[in-house]
Structures are given as C-alpha cells and as structure tokens.
C-alpha cells in the first residue's frame, strides 16, 4: 500500500515537473507508468534492455551497445528486437574481449544523443526491465544529464532484485555468483546462452522475467506496483 502511494506520488510530481518537458517521450513514459501501476503485469508492455559498456563506472566509462526486446501482454517479441552501437570517445580497449564489439565495428555507430532519443521513444509506452538495472540506469541518466535533461528518477523492474528477494525468502544468504544472469536462468531450467551480447542478454533477461513472474504466482496476479522500483 505504501509502495503504491509512494510510486503514485513520485510519478505525479515528475509529470508536473517543467524541467522535464524538454522530452515529450519521457513525459509519456511517466504517464504510462502512472496509469499502469495498478494493472496486472499480464496487461503491461515491457522493454527488456541490456547495455554493454567499456567498464562499470558511469562517470568515466562509455556505453558501447544497447539491445532491446519488447514483451507485449506476456509474449516476448523477437521480431521487434533492436540493437544499436554507440560512438565512443576513446577505444573499447580491453572490454572488447567481453562484449565482442571491436573498434572496427563502430563505423555504423550512432551518437549517444541519437541513441538516447531512440531509447526514450521506444519506452514511452513500456516499462523498462533489466538484470541489475541500477548499472544500466546510471549510464542512461548520465547520458541524459549530458543532453541537459537532469533526470535522477528512472523506474525499472530488476530481475536481479526479484531473484534476490526470492532467495532471501527461502534462505538466509546468497552465494557468490548466484545472482548472475545465467545462474538465475539455470534455476528456472532456461537454456544457457553465451553471455555479453546486448541483444542476447536482453532476450535472456526477458525470458527470466517471465519465468520469475510465473513462479511468483502468475502474471495475472501481480501488479506493476509490486515489482517496479525507482532508481
């Protein structure tokens, strides 16, 4: 109840915040969240997201690629999956060994501002989902700040947090590595994909979300406000 009231209030204030009027997409996104808070997640549109970066520090590292895949009324839509490469200042350097994006691939890359605009447009009628959402949100907020949109309030569903709660409810502690995307997926007998391609990870995260929601009692019985978090 408190969670609902709190989210409700936050969103109301954000919608009336003039500074954010610069981005109509963002406005619409908040409107969407505000109207859907009380709806069962089976009716919600989600956008599973994964970002590959040159490192983990949003202040000095840069985004390299973003993969998104929508979930419409409980069905993942691979046909609408999208993938963008971003121009970066430096070099992907050593991080190429992780995400497989090399400097030579970045010739088709877009400016960060373009990609952020595209991303906001994509999620104007959807709820963001990510595994360990905090990291992705930090990078997005940092990019928005550079565009002159000082947002410190983004909302997302985090499959890592959902998993953490589930494990805590069952036992006391969490072992090292137990919350990694593939480790989580194994517990639901989901197939193991090779990790660290933004699009594959977005798909992996989307599938994990559906599995988790089913284990939590089914998509019809969970409301958005039960799982949405503010970052």
């Amino acid at each position, binding site marked *: 109840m408190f969670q609902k009231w709190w989210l409700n209030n936050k969103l109301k204030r954000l919608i009336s915040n003039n500074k954010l009027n610069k981005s109509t997409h963002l406005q619409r996104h908040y409107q969407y969240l505000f109207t859907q808070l009380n709806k069962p997640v089976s009716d919600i549109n989600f956008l599973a997201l994964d970002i590959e970066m040159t490192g983990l520090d949003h202040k000095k590292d840069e985004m390299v690629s973003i993969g998104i895949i929508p979930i419409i009324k409980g069905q993942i839509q*691979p046909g609408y999956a999208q993938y963008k490469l971003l121009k970066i200042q430096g070099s992907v350097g050593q991080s190429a060994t992780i995400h497989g994006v090399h400097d030579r691939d970045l010739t088709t890359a877009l400016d960060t501002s373009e990609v952020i605009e595209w991303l906001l447009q994509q999620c104007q009628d959807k709820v963001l989902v990510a595994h360990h959402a905090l990291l992705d949100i930090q990078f997005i907020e940092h990019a928005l700040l550079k565009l002159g949109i000082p947002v410190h309030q983004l909302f997302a569903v985090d499959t890592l947090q959902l998993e953490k709660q589930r494990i805590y409810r069952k036992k006391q502690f969490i072992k090292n590595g137990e919350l990694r995307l593939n480790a989580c997926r194994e517990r639901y*007998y989901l197939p193991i*994909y090779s990790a660290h391609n933004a*699009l594959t990870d977005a798909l992996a995260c989307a*599938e994990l979300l*559906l599995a988790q929601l089913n284990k939590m*009692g089914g998509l019809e019985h969970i409301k958005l406000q039960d799982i949405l978090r503010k970052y």
Partner: protein
Amino acid sequence: MDNSELQPIFDFMRKLAPFDTLQEQTIKQCCSTLTIVYYSKAQKLVHVDTNQPQLYIVRTGAFEVSTQQGELIDRIGEGQFFGFSGMLSGEKVVNQVHILEDGLVYHLPASMFDQLRGSCYQFDRFFNRAFAKRLRNQSSLDRNAIDTARITNIMSKELTTIAPDATIHDAAMLMSNKRVSSLIVVDQKQLCGILTDRDLRSRVLAKGLGGNLSVASAMTQDPTTIESNSLIFEAMLKMSENNIHHLPVMSHNKPIAIITSTDLIRSQSSQPLLLIGQIQRQPNLESLIQVSQKIPDLLYNLISSDAKASEIGRILTSVTDALTRRLIALKQKQLGPEPMRFCWLSFGSQARQDQMAGSDQDNALILEKETTEQEAKYFKQLSEYVCCALNECGFPFCPGNIMAQNPVWQLTLQQWLQQFSKWIKSPDPTALLHASIFFDMRPIYGEISLFDQLQTSVLKDTKNNDIFIAALSQNALQSTPPLGFFRSFVIERDGREVKGIDLKHKGNALINDIIRIYALSVGIDEVNTSKRIERLVTQSAIDKDIAMNLLDAWEFIAHKRLTNQGRQFNQAQTVSNYILPDSLSSLARHQLKDAFKVIYEAQSTIKLKFLRQF
C-alpha cells in the same frame, strides 16, 4: 548476420528438424515472426486459441497432449511441436495440452506455417507424418495387448467345480450342461484335481467302467496350475512343456478359473513361443546356435512393440531356460541317463527372470550325493558341454566363474547347505558379494526337490536373522543412485563430454538389492523382483507406497535401458547399459531423476529399518 537478429533463437531453429531443411534467409524470416511465451506448471493447461491457430515449438519444458476424455495422445519435450493438427486438418482441435514441466515455447503464426509448408516439400511432409503418427496413437490405445497380455484377459470368467465324491455321471452331466471340457475338483475350497474330457475317455469309458465311479478316482490329482498374474505366453509354455490342454488358474492358493488351449489359440500365436518351439525341436548344437541368433531380433521386436520391461525380461529368460533344457537333453541323449538325481540351478538375472541383452550365464549343479570318479566324469562332460554351448549361443561365460562346469559349484545338497550357512553365519565381503548372485536362485532342470530343500533351509536361516540382514543392508548401501549426476548434467550441457549413466548397476541392480534384503528377512521364496514385491506387500512386510514406487522405478529404468539398447542394436552399436544424458528428453530426464530419488529414499528406509541408523 544482422545485429538485430537474436543468435540464440536462430541457432536453435537452424538445428531443429524440419526447419533445418530451410534456407538460412527463410529461417531468419521465421525467427522474426515468433513470439516467446513462458508456461508454468501452475497454469496446468496451455490455453490454445482455436480461432488463432499457431505452431507451438517447445524450447524447454515438457507437455502432454490428450483428448478431452483424458486419453494420452503424445508427450512433447524440447524441440518438439504441438498445435499443428488443427492447422493441417483445418478442423478445430479440442485436444488439451497439459503442462508437465515449466518451459519456454515459441509461437509460430499460422500464416508463416502455411507459407513454409507451401514453399518447402520436406517441411510439409514432416508435419503430415507427425500428424498421421498422432492419429495412430489416438486409435491404438490397446497396442500392448499383443504378446504380453495376461491370462486374466482370456480365461473363462466362470469356474465350474465339482466335489471329489460326486459321481462321474454327475460330472458328465454338469460338463455337457455348462458346455465345458473340464471341471475343477474342489474339496473344502482347495484345489485337489482336474477332470477333463480326455480323463472320461481314457480312464472311464476305455476301461469299461460305469458312471457310478467317483470323480476322485478318475481325475488328475494335483494338476499343474498357473498363477493368475501370468502372461498368456507363460500359459502356452506350460501347456506345451507338460503336454496338457487345461490349466487351473490360481490366486492366493485358490482356483479362480481355468484356461484352455482353445483360449490360447484364440488369443493368437506368438513369436517368443515359436522361438521356444524351434529350440525344443533342434537336433544338434549347430542348429541351436543358429536359432539363438534370432534372440536379439526377438528382443528388438519386443522393445519396439513397447512391451513392459519386466515382461520382456520374463520372455527372454524363458528362451534361455528352454535353451538350457534343450542342451542338457541333447547331451544326455549321448551320455545316457544321469547316474544320480541332480538339479541344474540358475542364479542372478536368469533366476530373477530379468535377463536382457548380453546377460552372462550364472549356473551351478546340486547333486544328490558324493560322486564316484565315474559319476564326476559324467557331470563334468555334461556341464562343460552346456556351458560352452550357452556361450556359443550368445550367453557369455561368467567372468566370476560361477558356472556349473566349475567343480567348485558342483556340490551335493549337503555341501550347498554348509556353503550357504557359512555365508550367512559369517557375512564377510566375499560372502556379501556372493549374496547378490547366489541368493537369487531358481531350478532350471532336474530334481526340483533338491532345490526346494536348499531354498527352504536357506530362507529359514536368513529369516529374522538381524546380523546377516544388517550386513547385507550395509553392503547394499555401498552404491547409491546417481542423483548428483543431474546437477553436473546441467553444468555440462553446453557441449563438454559427458559420461553415461549405468542404468543397470546404478538403477535396477540397486532395487533388486533392496528387495532381496526385505525378501530374505521375512523368508519369501520368490526371486523375481516384482513377484517379491507383491508378496512383501501382501505380507505387509514393506510399506506399500515404497513398494509401488520401487516397482514403478524399476520398470521405468529398465524400460529406458531396453529402449536405449534397442536404439544401439538398431544402429549396430555395442549394446550396453550406459545411457548418454543428451539422448534423453527433458521429460525423461526428470522422470529418471524421480526414479533415482525413489531408490535413494528406499535405501534410507533400509538404513533405518535394518541398520537402525539415521
């Protein structure tokens, strides 16, 4: 490849028949029309919208398609399909799809499915075949009733009995009134004889005797009988071996029906019986070797007809028994009659009647008394001939040399009694090792009474013998089912080499061990594992749930082992007891895991019950 395509989905579809026959570009197009849904067991049923048909491609999980009446049509696991029947036939399909295991399912819209069928012949043919197969399954629910049906299905429902002090006249009247060819003679509800048409002919009319004779004087006393849970095939075997046409059917030592050769003929002739008939007719070893080359084919046919594993075991063992008897008879024709009474014993799998492909021979002799040099020579020649011949017929020599041709196992009854009592009194490791073989024994040929004396005495010694039973339990617990295997399987499924599971030694043998302990501890004289379980349950010597679970687990593991061997045989590979995990569907993997869990729990019960350990 385009960056916006999803590699894992493409990789899966590209390897999946019949999509693997499509052009790469078509597969990509296909992938982009898919939607992915997660189904959870808690939902129980997949909601199939008949107005919006689509192909369901199972990525993970397990499903079961059944008719509205609940009859099973198909089980579906990873990489298999459902939902195509409606799209192929154009009719609304009312089948139900149950969710057995949570999983991801790809939905392919009907428009794409139709486009693929139109553009690719192989693709179209694949689904038409699958559709035809499913229809077949739907209409042949009683396909198991071929070789393996039980006599209860064909025996007369009505039992016509007469008392032993009735007259022959009464008996003849009764038979013609009831239109039966035989009567069961019952005294105080106990079977005491059988009176048949032939008896009336040969023992009364041919001798010029009158109708006032008592039934007791014309009947066959203590006739050969058969248990009510036997197979039709076993009834046939019993009749042909004893040259009789009527068998009283017994249940709990009471006659409940009679089965006649006419009943059997009506139920059709069967292949195993033909093989046994051939074995009984062969004049020499060469021709027997040739006939026994058909045994693998018989096994393969039984497997493909989907007979129960326990029944396949019984049928194969009957063939081995017949072969052994025929070989003994052949050699005796040459050597002359035996110089003293003896009994040819079988141990291990042949005794338990669960022989499968590649079983080796375990046998021995019980002799009536000490042999002279001349007599010893007779049994040496006989046993060496039979053991070597069995080896040549496909039943390899026992690596542990537990064979009748080994003088160590040609013992007099007295020596056998001493040997067993030594094992039971001081259960050292060798004794316990022997226990799993020797304590499952069955007479094959010769003087049954020698065997009966031995078995009675052994069971008397083991019954309630806490120390021996505890040692046996301790030994049985040395080996545990491969539960942890599945955990490693999860880790190893990304393609590294995985070892197989030994379904025999880590599965069926463990259940045999458990049940043997129970059976010996209460002195049950059955040796077949399922018969032992049955007796244990009727005597309340085992928890009924554990017993039934073990029976199911035994059957499931044995069935997996057989189908695996069938596949190996079919692909001309070496037939073994190992199964590779990647050859199992996700459903089978879960079932196998459950079966192993049952064994594990039963072992814990034994620990508690016989070792008083927690």
